[in-house]
């Protein structure tokens, strides 16, 4: 019996060692990126050391101020794009999800199936006419190609996710709210929204991080450097870094992922919940 216990302990220890080594392997690149932004350019390559031999402090300052505009502008631009997209997505997806989850109306089944199938519709097949359409609207080189579709609930992932949460709320809630004099909209705002707060929260962080990291759409819709988001600015720095200011690029990359990492650690509970309920993306 004690022999069996011993074997169990050894097994547990081995599992922990494996999981820890894997964990180090997984995040070592990110740690390396952070410390390398303090290294001198010739120490970034050809060295095994994690910590810099001579700490370079000004790579952040120089990287931030390199080029025609500073990263203050790119960060500001990214926030100007991301925040409205997140807010509009939350509002429109909540309304639509509420409609699907709580009411019976003609063609509901068909419409819901269409909504689900657009989850699998490859973006590649609609991107060119979308570009032509936005060009005709005069929306190119603005953030409207991002914000307007989010007003019209064009992110079915979040509708689906919120529908799942709405379905978990008992229907009796609606009935008693109606008796108390709520109409369907006040029921949503006063009764349902407080209850699905965790879901709204996880939808918000997912949309924040996805929009923050988006590259392809920014690349095709935005063409003046003045409107560049961080993704585009980073790519530009990478292309124009003729003198190979690698530490500056790594410093800016570190700053670029910082908001996502911070949000992730502060709100990781919502992340895992969100992805496990819907089981999509990523």
């Amino acid at each position: 019996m004690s022999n069996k216990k011993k074997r169990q302990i050894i097994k547990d220890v081995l599992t922990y060692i494996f999981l820890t080594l894997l964990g180090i392997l997984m995040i070592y690149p990110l740690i390396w990126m952070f410390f390398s932004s303090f290294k001198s350019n010739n120490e970034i390559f050809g060295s095994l050391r994690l910590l810099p031999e001579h700490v370079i402090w000004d790579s952040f300052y120089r990287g931030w101020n390199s080029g025609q505009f500073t990263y203050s502008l790119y960060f500001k631009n990214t926030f100007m794009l991301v925040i409205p997209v997140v807010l509009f997505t939350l509002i429109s997806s909540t309304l639509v999800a509420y409609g699907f989850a709580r009411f019976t109306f003609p063609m509901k089944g068909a419409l819901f199936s269409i909504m689900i199938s657009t989850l699998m519709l490859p973006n590649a097949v609609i991107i060119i006419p979308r570009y032509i359409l936005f060009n005709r609207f005069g929306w190119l080189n603005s953030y409207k190609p991002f914000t307007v579709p989010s007003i019209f609930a064009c992110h079915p992932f979040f509708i689906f996710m919120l529908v799942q949460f709405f379905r978990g709320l008992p229907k009796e809630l609606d009935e008693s709210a109606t008796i108390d004099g709520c109409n369907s909209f006040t029921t949503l705002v006063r009764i349902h929204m407080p209850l699905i707060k965790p879901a709204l929260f996880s939808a918000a962080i997912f949309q924040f991080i996805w929009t923050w990291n988006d590259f392809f759409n920014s690349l095709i819709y935005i063409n003046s450097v003045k409107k560049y988001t961080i993704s585009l600015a980073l790519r530009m720095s990478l292309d124009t870094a003729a003198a190979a200011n690698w530490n500056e690029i790594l410093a800016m990359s570190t700053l670029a992922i910082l908001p996502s990492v911070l949000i992730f650690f502060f709100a990781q509970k919502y992340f895992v919940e969100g992805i496990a309920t819907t089981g999509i993306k990523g």
Partner: protein
Amino acid sequence: MKGHVNSKKKKRQYIGLLYILPWILGFLIFQLYPFISSFIYSFTNYNMTSNTEFIGLKNYIDIFTKDSQFYNSLKVTIFYVFMAVPMKLIFALIIAMILNIKLKYVNFYRTIYYLPSILGGSVAVAVLWRFLFADSGLVNEILSFFGIPKIGWLSNPKIALFTISLLTVWQFGSSMVIFLAGLKQIPKELYEAATVDGVSKAGMFFTITLPLLTPIILFNLIMQMIIAFQEFTGSFVITNGGPMKSTYLYAMKLYDEGFLFMKMGYASALSWVLFTVILVCTALIFKSSEYWTYYEDGGQY
């Protein structure tokens, strides 16, 4: 009384339509219209400058007979999908199985493994990959520390695509979380009964865990495949399609034709070829899944 309830119900039905109205409009304008018009554009020479003419099947004929980069990018993309998606899912499944054992600190490990998933698509991480796998980058330095000769992770045309796939596999966290949720759903009684019957651990994996997990494997497989077929940022930022077009993924080809050369009619035709390939692959997986997925309720979900 009954009539009153019915009329009230009917009233509510239309309010439901009002709530989903934003989506209906968004779907029609930003999804259905582009979907149909990209099909129409694919039969034209649309290029935003000269007059647009219908040219019949010419785009498609050119794609299949004149465009050598088409075959290359399709081949590269299929290799990429077949390499990255199974690696990612197998890895995700193995780690999910390990984390499903009763251990302390599981949440901590789950968080750490999940972190790369949220950063994976960003330019910053692609930049990082470019540094790590450079010829004298960290990975090669580690290899040479162990006496292994340097590898041209990004400079060798035979290996570069594999290096890009590693970036995809690195983001196994989200699939892992989905597998983990699936594993938690498997009733413990099944394993207890199997233990009583003297079934080995490996036997339990193949007779209980794997069959009950097949619907989730199917789901993960299809979603990851659709995403992988459209991969862009990795190859665009890390290798820019090189060396020798060995990482020239289909999405890059599409970008070059449509947004660099502005041959939008041609690019629309390319996008429909990709759509067809994705559709055929999805259909094949669905068709084959009849033989390898198991539903407790007989598939009526």
